[in-house]
């Protein structure tokens, strides 16, 4: 039997997260397939090892361990939601393996074995707010989110940011809902009331996956149009829109680093390959898929550069690696294990796609530690020697709390 390089895929195929993660498993299979068509890496074929952590966080850790210890994979692509990542972190640290995490998250983390290919808050939330403030003249803000860490942190950051920009306390309304919240009547009417105070109002939504469909349905039916109160979402992409009649939502916004509508040749090719792979002409692509695309290509490049899949070597060689992203630029792996990305603001179209209405002039470097949070504004991360630290405190000149 021919020797292969094994790649672990750790995405939930059942349970609540399957709705988002199954697509990423398929995307990874496609990427591995494509790479094998190009001859694999280092002359060896790649072999995907798929497991199902079933949306169960401790199971993520167990499966991660199984992938690394039992299946001996060389890198793992997976997780969605911070808690799944937090759950597997110690495993990757202990067994010294690699994880590529493809979803936007709240930041406040930088770990030697993890590469964060999704957006940090400064690559999504802050530019979105800037856009609304500058281009749409928004003065009053509803920060609506699902009650968990990502929205909580993002909103903390945004609150600090808005206040720094002179927005008054009473012009910010913060609202949290449980996971899978499905009855939005009260909240939508509260938003409507909050928005009728005479000042231009917008909703910044960190509402998680499933709850969005009923939210937007209620919004549409209550007649809240984008021109009146635009909603900018950080967790609503093409996949989520596919489950919605978007006609009433035209003009509402999302902030991402990629839209399927990106008008580039690489993207066109990516979409074609994807649709052919999955056998569905209608199947959409989305931002976390692009993140895996970038992450995977970075890993391939780093392995080739290092000439080995050994994690330590790859960790050293991957920083500084640049690969094309799907929006026409080159994304690079930064020393803090986050990557550079363009930030796009898109408007929902009737066909379920986004049209980019604004984008950052250049690429934005992912910031592991927010400048707007008390505890973390003095921290930086740099995994290159000699610093080799994920949480270096520039004030005290020490490497965070970690002794090692």
């Amino acid at each position: 039997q021919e020797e292969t390089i094994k790649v672990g895929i750790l995405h939930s195929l059942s349970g609540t997260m399957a709705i988002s993660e199954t697509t990423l498993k398929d995307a990874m299979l496609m990427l591995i397939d494509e790479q094998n068509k190009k001859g694999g890496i280092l002359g060896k074929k790649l072999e995907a090892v798929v497991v199902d952590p079933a949306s169960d966080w401790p199971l993520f850790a167990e499966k991660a361990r199984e992938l690394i210890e039992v299946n001996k994979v060389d890198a793992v692509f997976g997780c969605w939601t911070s808690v799944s990542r937090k759950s597997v972190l110690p495993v990757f640290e202990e067994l010294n393996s690699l994880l590529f995490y493809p979803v936007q998250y709240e930041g406040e983390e930088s770990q030697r074995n993890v590469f964060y290919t999704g957006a940090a808050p400064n690559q999504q939330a802050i530019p979105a707010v800037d856009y609304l403030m500058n281009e749409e003249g928004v003065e009053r803000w509803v920060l609506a989110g699902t009650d968990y860490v990502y929205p909580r942190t993002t909103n903390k950051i945004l609150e600090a940011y808005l206040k720094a920009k002179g927005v008054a306390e009473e012009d910010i309304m913060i609202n949290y809902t449980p996971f899978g919240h499905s009855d939005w009547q009260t909240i939508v009417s509260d938003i409507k009331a909050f928005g009728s105070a005479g000042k231009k109002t917008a909703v910044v939504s960190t509402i998680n996956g499933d709850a969005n469909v009923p939210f937007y349905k209620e919004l549409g039916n209550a007649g809240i149009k984008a021109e009146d109160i635009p909603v900018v979402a950080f967790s609503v992409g093409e996949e989520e829109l596919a489950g919605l009649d978007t006609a009433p939502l035209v003009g509402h916004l999302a902030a991402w680093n990629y839209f399927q509508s990106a008008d580039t040749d690489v993207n066109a090719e990516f979409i074609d390959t994807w649709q052919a792979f999955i056998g569905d002409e209608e199947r959409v692509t989305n931002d976390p898929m692009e993140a895996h695309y970038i992450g995977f290509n970075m890993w391939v490049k780093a392995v080739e550069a290092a000439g080995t899949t050994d994690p330590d070597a790859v960790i050293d060689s991957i920083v500084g690696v640049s690969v094309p992203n799907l929006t026409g630029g080159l994304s690079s792996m930064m020393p803090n294990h986050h990557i550079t990305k363009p930030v796009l603001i898109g408007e929902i179209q009737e066909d379920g796609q986004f049209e980019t209405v604004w984008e950052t002039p250049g690429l934005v470097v992912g910031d592991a530690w927010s400048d707007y949070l008390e505890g973390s504004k003095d921290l930086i991360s740099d995994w290159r020697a000699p610093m080799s630290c994920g949480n270096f405190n520039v004030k005290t000149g020490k490497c965070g709390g970690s002794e090692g």
Partner: protein
Amino acid sequence: MMTSYLFRTLDAKAGVFIAILLAVILLVPALNILIAPDNFFHVPNYAVTLMGKYLTYALLALSVDLVWGFCGILSLGHGAFFALGGYAMGMYLMRQIGTRGVYGDPTLPDFMVFLNWQELPWYWYGFDMAWFAFLMVMIAPGILAFVFGWFAFRSRVTGVYLSIITQALTYALLLAFFRNDMGFGGNNGLTDFKDILGFDIQASSTRAGLFVASGLALLVCFLICRYVTKSKLGKVLVAVRDAESRTRFLGYRVEYYKLFVWVLSAMMAGIAGALYVPQVGIINPGEFAPANSIEVVIWVAVGGRGTLIGAVLGAVLVNFAKTWFTAALPDVWLFALGALFVVVTLFLPKGILGTIGDGWTALRQRRVSSNAQAGGGKPPKTPPTSPAAAANVDPQPAE
């Protein structure tokens, strides 16, 4: 006297079980530590932790079986006690991190630092001390169980009503612990533990130690359950399960009996949770999810309700199946697991152990009766366990 009684109550089946359990407790760590990794008999770390987890699940199943199998209290919320025990342990482990957190704060856990908490909430006090934390592992679930049970049993909430409010309880706790404002780390829960009682939590010796601890906890709790259920109190419990009000007319204070096993069971669940957390490395509100508690009930049903060994067997078996299926059939494993449950209910109506037990008794009885009445009447056409007979002779309707 008690111990002699205890041992008198151990029949052959229990003896075999204890022997196997002891062997596992001794052999697994030995094969893990003493045998070289490339040897065929080596048990990898991965397997040790995995089996450790199964043992804590088995303990949880045991606690559910105690209240359900013997006292008829179908708890759809035992995950709450498990999770509380887990959180107590998690809080201890969090405090052990000390300045090694990413922000280097000596008292505040990381998640509090970045959400700008200024000081440690009062309910976190004391968790830096192992003895206190370990006590809380039992006391916290115990108190919750006591308060809940005190009200519910005195109000004579029974049957599905009780089941559903236990579910409401765990669901409410789920939502509460999800809230970041509660100060338990919200959805992310507690993670990134460094060491326990001074031992590095990732060291394989620590893992082996935790495995042994889980095994011993299971063994001790099994013996306790065994003693309780074989005692006269156990008979009262079964009486309560069958005909609660009749038991009252005999002068037994049913609510005290229920409260006793309920709290005992909750504490056992708490211990299970506490041993679970350091082995899986995370405790988060997901453990409070009603579905988790339902699953525990299902392990017990699969193994055989009302047979303590069955509960243990069911927990290990179902979880082993889950581990295996999720890796071997990641895309369709739910078909396999779902079918397993359906098949067990249909063909092993009393669970795995119950059915084995039945077969055993039937065999013995047949031998006895065929000796007694040589040439007597024919044996029944339809064996009692066949579905047709079960449906036909069924004594009582559902409600």
